């Protein structure tokens, strides 16, 4: 046996720091007489040889240091992690290392399916549990597949979740390592988790059980039966049966959620003597490790296997940040499918209904006091939908990520974001809207007299056809807001936009249809039978996630528009009474002013700033962000600080903004390039830029203060770099 693999009997107590918590725990349990699956541990030396000999360590360093972690949003951390993962996928294990790994793997597993699990050194030494930060893969068959998944487990040392907890984990590119556990797969018919001590009551133990694989229990897809027991005696205190409907089973090379046969739906997965046996297992583990354990187990026939054991800890503490919420965004395929159903069948219709109800209300007869109440009510409604958006819509964006990961695993593309080309083409509402705008613009381009009447703001002088097209645009999208501007309330702003768009060549979206079809075929060709169905469903889910990422914001915009309508009515009344009311006044203040004649608005602070850095002799010359839309663009910067700035946008300029809101994407087709402070590949700005083939860089901190209006800017969407000032590029 080479030193690059250790079987469980070979693991000694001094190996603990090397083999990590999982590997060491299995070795202890095997020695203690518990039934554990045969396993091989691949210690960190193999990881170190891989990252050193392939140059991947430098790649990780460069990816992690694109920008300061404090400046990165969670989405950027995910992107960074995906790039690192792709590097591990792209680079094969060198021959010298293969020679050390293959013989022991083949000797032990031959043609058996295995689980390839992370076993990061030190992960169990922390006071809190970091379970789930690194990857584990189940049902891996064949030596080559095992080697590939070893690389993926190594890559997960740099998973987005691990990066979020980098400080607690002490992640360091030059020091951190990863051990891997390759373990024979035990496809149990009944599985679960035993908690040697109930975290909520130290006198109790808890046993959870499901039919099928326990992966579904761990990720919350299948509800388990639950037993509470006396810790002292093992006596059952209570049994809480689950609503048993589904089971996760191993099918044709993958796992699938299946309906649970009727006879099992009415029978608990464990009989009372089996509950006792599982409890005995948790006690034995506690004796072996010296503290209450959280034990994963499975029954194959009547034989009880221990899959893993770890100390019961307080779990990852949330502290004062949002990290546990971010972690909850990682959803399983099944979870995302039901989320989609919920969004499409309930959330969106309810949102439209809510906006429609508000639109029906005539605000004119309201007294000032009543109007103030209505503004506050609408603000509450807005808050409710913001919360629901965060709870349902944001997590659904993970559908794109899940698809991307599977796409990269099977196709190993050089560009880790190539999967987005396959998601494109979904009929997003913002694209429909832009097409309707383009239709209006075409008429303006053809008819100079119409252009002139728009310039003067004369609606009456318009041709009937144009008037009809305009009405149908306003009927569908007139309530669109960007910040405080609504098209139907301020047609002059819309006319200015149409004239602006008419002054440049029509938008020509590159035809990607053919490439997309070919890529789709290539992706699906990597799957067979049942797996092919899963792949198609996953692609469909990814597309829905991509489309809804943009669309749900348009729907949110409709709610927002009704809030704006009430606030604008309030402002109008205040001004009629000659009370000072700033254009940017918040709804809450407008409501207060309507109620209280003595209320005084604060004078607005001008947001029109010169980039302050320039004043002190400091100027950004080259800024690094994330490459979010490939291509190179050179042009004058148009920095968007206020809604009005958007209407001054000229075709061919570089759009520089804090974040592209879906309601402002109508200006995107005019832009030669996009620079955004908010970072990420899967944010609205990046998605819409990709749709139009516009070079885009996101995640430039202080973009709007480092770049000034009119400055020549080069956007390198391949590398994610923005160069300020003249360059030699054409």
């Amino acid at each position: 046996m080479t030193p690059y693999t250790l079987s469980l009997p070979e693991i000694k107590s001094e190996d603990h720091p090397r083999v990590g918590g999982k590997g060491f725990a299995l070795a202890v349990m095997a020695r203690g007489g518990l039934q554990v699956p045969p396993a091989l541990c691949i210690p960190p030396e193999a990881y170190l040889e891989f990252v050193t000999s392939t140059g991947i360590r430098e790649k990780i360093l460069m990816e992690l240091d694109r920008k300061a972690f404090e400046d990165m949003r969670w989405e950027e951390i995910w992107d960074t992690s995906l790039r690192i993962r792709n590097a591990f996928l792209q680079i094969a294990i060198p021959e010298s290392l293969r020679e050390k790994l293959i013989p022991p793997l083949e000797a032990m597993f031959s043609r058996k399916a295995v689980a390839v699990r992370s076993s990061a050194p030190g992960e169990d030494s922390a006071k809190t549990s970091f379970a789930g930060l690194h990857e584990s893969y189940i049902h891996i068959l064949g030596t080559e597949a095992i080697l590939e998944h070893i690389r993926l487990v190594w890559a997960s040392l740099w998973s987005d979740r691990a990066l979020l907890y980098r400080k607690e984990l002490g992640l360091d590119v030059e020091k951190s390592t990863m051990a891997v556990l390759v373990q024979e797969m035990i496809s149990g018919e009944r599985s679960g988790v035993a908690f040697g001590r109930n975290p909520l009551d130290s006198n109790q133990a808890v046993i959870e059980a499901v039919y099928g694989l326990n992966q579904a229990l761990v990720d919350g897809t299948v509800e388990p039966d639950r037993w509470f027991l006396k810790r002292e005696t093992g006596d059952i205190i209570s049994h809480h049966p689950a609503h048993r409907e589904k089971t996760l089973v191993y099918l044709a090379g993958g796992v699938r959620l299946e309906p649970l046969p009727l006879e099992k739906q009415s029978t608990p997965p464990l009989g009372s003597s089996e509950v006792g046996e599982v409890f005995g297992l948790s006690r034995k583990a506690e004796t072996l490790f010296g503290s209450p354990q959280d034990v994963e187990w499975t029954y194959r026939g009547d034989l009880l296997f221990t899959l893993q054991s770890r100390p019961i800890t307080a779990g990852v503490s949330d502290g004062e940040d949002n990290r546990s919420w971010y972690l909850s965004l990682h959803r399983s395929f099944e979870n995302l499918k039901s989320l989609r159903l919920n969004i499409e069948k309930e959330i969106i219709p309810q949102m439209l209904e809510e906006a429609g109800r508000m639109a029906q209300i005539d605000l004119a007869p309201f007294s000032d006091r009543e109007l103030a109440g209505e503004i506050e009510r609408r603000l509450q409604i807005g808050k409710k939908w913001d919360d629901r958006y965060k709870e349902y819509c944001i997590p659904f964006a993970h559908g794109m990520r899940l698809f991307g990961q599977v796409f990269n695993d099977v196709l190993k593309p050089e560009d880790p974001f190539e999967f987005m080309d396959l998601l494109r083409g979904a009929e997003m509402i913002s694209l429909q809207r832009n097409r309707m705008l383009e239709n209006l613009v075409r008429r303006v381009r053809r008819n100079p007299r119409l252009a002139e009447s728009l310039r003067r703001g004369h609606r009456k002088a318009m041709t009937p056809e144009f008037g009809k097209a305009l009405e149908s645009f306003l009927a569908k999208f007139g309530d669109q807001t960007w910040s405080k501007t609504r098209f139907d309330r301020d047609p002059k702003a819309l006319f200015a936009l149409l004239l602006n768009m008419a002054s440049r060549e029509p938008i020509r979206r590159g035809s990607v249809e053919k490439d997309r079809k070919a890529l789709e075929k290539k992706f699906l060709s990597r799957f067979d039978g049942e797996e092919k169905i899963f792949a198609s469903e996953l692609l469909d889910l990814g597309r829905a996630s991509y489309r809804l990422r943009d669309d749900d914001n348009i729907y949110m915009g409709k709610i927002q528009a009704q809030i704006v309508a009430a606030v604008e009515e309030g402002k109008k009344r205040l001004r009629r009474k000659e009370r000072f009311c700033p254009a940017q006044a918040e709804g809450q203040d407008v409501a207060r002013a309507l109620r209280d004649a003595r209320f005084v608005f604060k004078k607005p602070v001008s947001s029109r700033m010169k980039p302050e850095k320039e004043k002190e002799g400091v100027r950004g010359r080259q800024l690094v962000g994330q490459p979010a839309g490939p291509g190179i663009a050179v042009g004058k910067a148009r920095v968007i600080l206020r809604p009005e700035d958007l209407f001054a946008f000229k075709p061919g300029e570089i759009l520089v903004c804090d974040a592209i809101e879906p309601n402002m994407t109508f200006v995107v087709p005019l832009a030669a390039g996009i620079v955004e402070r908010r970072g990420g590949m899967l944010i609205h700005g990046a998605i819409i830029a990709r749709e139009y083939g516009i070079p885009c860089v996101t995640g430039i901190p202080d973009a709007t203060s480092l770049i000034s209006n009119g400055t020549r800017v080069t956007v390198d969407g391949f590398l994610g770099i923005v160069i300020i000032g003249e360059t030699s590029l054409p």
Partner: protein
Amino acid sequence: MKEKEQIERILQDLFSSQKLAVLGTHQAGQPYGSLVAFAGTRDFKNLIFATTRVTRKFANLKADSRVSMVLDNRSNRVADFRKAVAATALGQAKETKGKERKKFVKIYLAKHPHLREFVSSPTCALVRIRVEVYYVVWRFQNVFELKVRP
């Protein structure tokens, strides 16, 4: 203003931690790089180095006073991709004389005391670069410009 503070801190660190820098001159358009022992003034306005007057770099800067100087802290290790910073200074170089020489010699020898004999030699010129601008690079590709007021 975090960028200005960051740039000034980087320059201060480079001034104190680095002894050598690369001077860029040219001869009839042909660029020429030389490693020199340098010192910088606290206000970042001046970079000083010593050279004998018979060197090619001295001839070059006499013919065209426009020069560059690259300061960096690379260690030729993997960590450089994360930690290394570099600053390229552009400015005008001129040999110092009289009082001005005295003032700059003091600063220069405080950093390089072992060069006392070299600097005192009648053939050695102490050259001052009046810096106009620094281009400071960190995190591999982030580039900021700091204009130095005359």
